[in-house]
């Protein structure tokens, strides 16, 4: 496969991955959070190298705090705050 085509497939793949991410975030935020937590937990365990723990913290979702009742409204109105 020539370089240009390979590059194209990489570009396409990245765009598709981003699209999947956005889609999952909008439609399945709960599942996505759990997935991220599940991935991050083994990485931040005690005794792992520092870079791994930092990576795990990045993967883990931000704290939810008080989400309020309008979660998941698909951005039809400005978000609270």
């Amino acid at each position, binding site marked *: 496969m020539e370089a240009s085509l390979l590059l194209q497939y990489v570009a396409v793949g990245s765009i598709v991955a981003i699209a999947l991410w956005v889609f999952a975030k909008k439609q399945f935020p709960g599942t996505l959070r759990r997935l991220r937590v599940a991935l991050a937990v083994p990485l931040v365990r005690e005794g792992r190298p520092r870079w791994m723990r930092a990576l795990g913290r990045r993967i883990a979702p931000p704290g939810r705090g008080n989400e309020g009742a309008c979660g998941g409204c698909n951005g039809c109105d400005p978000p*609270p705050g």
Partner: protein
Amino acid sequence: MSTATAPLRLALLGNPNCGKTALFNQLTGSRQKVANYAGVTVERKEGRLQSPSGRSYAVLDLPGAYSLNPASLDEAITRDLCRGFYPGEAAPDVLVCVVDATNLRLHLRFVLEVRQMGRPMVVALNMSDAAQRRGIGIDREALQRELGVPVVETVAVRRNGARGLVEMIDRVAAHPQPPSVHLADDADLHAETRRLLDATVAMPRRTAQIDDALDRWLLHPLFGLLTLAVVMFLIFQAVYAWATPVMDLIEAGTGALGEWAGGVIPEGPLNSLVVDGIIAGLGGVIVFLPQILVLFAFILALEESGYLPRAAFLLDRMMAGAGLSGRSFIPLLSSFACAIPGIMATRSIQDPRDRLATILVAPLMTCSARLPVYALLIGAFIPSQTVWGGFNLQGLVLFGLYMAGILSALAVSFVMKKWRRDKSEHPLLLELPSYRLPNPRDLLIGLWERALIFLKRVGGIIFALTVLLWVLLNFPAAPADATLPAIDYSLAGRIGHALAVVFAPLGFNWQICIALIPGLAAREVAVASLATVYALSAADDDAAAQALLPLISDGWSLATGLSLLVWFIYAPQCLATWAAIKRETGSWKTMALAAGYLFVLAYLASLLTYQVAVALGAG
């Protein structure tokens, strides 16, 4: 590391229509929509106030409440939160009670109720400019003395109109004290209100003469309704007249962008994704932004002016006949933007049966996501001519579609009412606020926000779905001995063909069937998806470069176009709406009922439309 002290918590409370939301905007700088209805006042509306003295506060905008003796969910939340009984919420440190200075007779009683709670508070005398203009003389210092709490004048809609309030908040927060005057628990608040008013406020004999004069006309049984009809009508004409030039510009722009990108990116999957997928898809939706904005400019202006409760007044009897209350009017109107805030706005409806009825019909209100679909189909199948001496036919049809949604909602609600066999009272008790001239700045902010929301949706979920659809339309690749175009072998293509069997009686071809699926996440994606499907199934480059509109205008029959239009009046899809219904009613059954009846209605209505149209020769 110094211990960061949690910022002090302020809570804004007040009657509905006191301008609390505008004040909230002023204080927090966050641009929230200023509306007269509860749909935007969801319980957790929080912002941050940075005072010039450097202190930082967390500000909570509580739902509007007439009384701390709750008659609706909104009021119960307000009361509980102030007392610190609301789960997960600390009690506010300082209460900011916002009152409408032109209407102290009503609002001051609420202040007294709040004062009974004995927490540090500040009274914000809002709309003090309007009060002054009407000749209402308020002795602020006397009021402050009599109430025993600080009283500050504010003009929420004016720049820096809340400066005095912020200074007072700083002072109170530094030394918080309970009010210095306290009444017995069973004190007669109305008598006390009257005493305070006599002591501190000089009311002119007839304050709202303008209101009276306007209401005389606008609430007149004949002229009022006529005016309402004319206003609604003109709005839809304006949508077409004003938006079209801008739309042409956008379309030219996306076309040029597509051509450029097509030339620059070498042939291959990336080219296809970017040009046929992203640019074609997103461009197909963005082009309708001008129409959405014009429509919303009118809706916002009407809201701000205070006209909408008058419309609710005129329509209440008709709505009650259909089993809805006049209080449903405003949540249903919210649903014209998006059913989800509308469904949430039903919290202000006390009667649970009315609330359920309103929630179930809210999806029938033509939400803004349908507008691109309508506009596309109208553009393709309805000729742009003037009829009846000056009315744009396309504008008429759009108006008709909105009316169809409303009438269907009334019909569905009527059926539900008959089914319920309910004979009891449906309270109305709706306040009609003073008329206000819409503030151009707030209007522009509102429009800007709406444009941003739209663009975020385009860049977010619509982009994502367009890309994913492109993937499904391209894989698996066609086998070596393919006889049909490649797209028919793709996963999406196969699904489309399978669904086409079910939808054939409606005149939906397989491309439409494919496009309906991503439409589940966002109705307007159907437009983007159609654009992508057609771009990818084009036989050659020239055909691919064609815009969507002429393609379907030539390729589909009028009957199919009309049938799809009718489908979208009922448009059962939109998972987010279903999720909102489930959340607000707490019941899977209700959600299934809503989705189910909408599907059935959509299918039957489209079926009828298509078959009749074909019989009349439009097939």
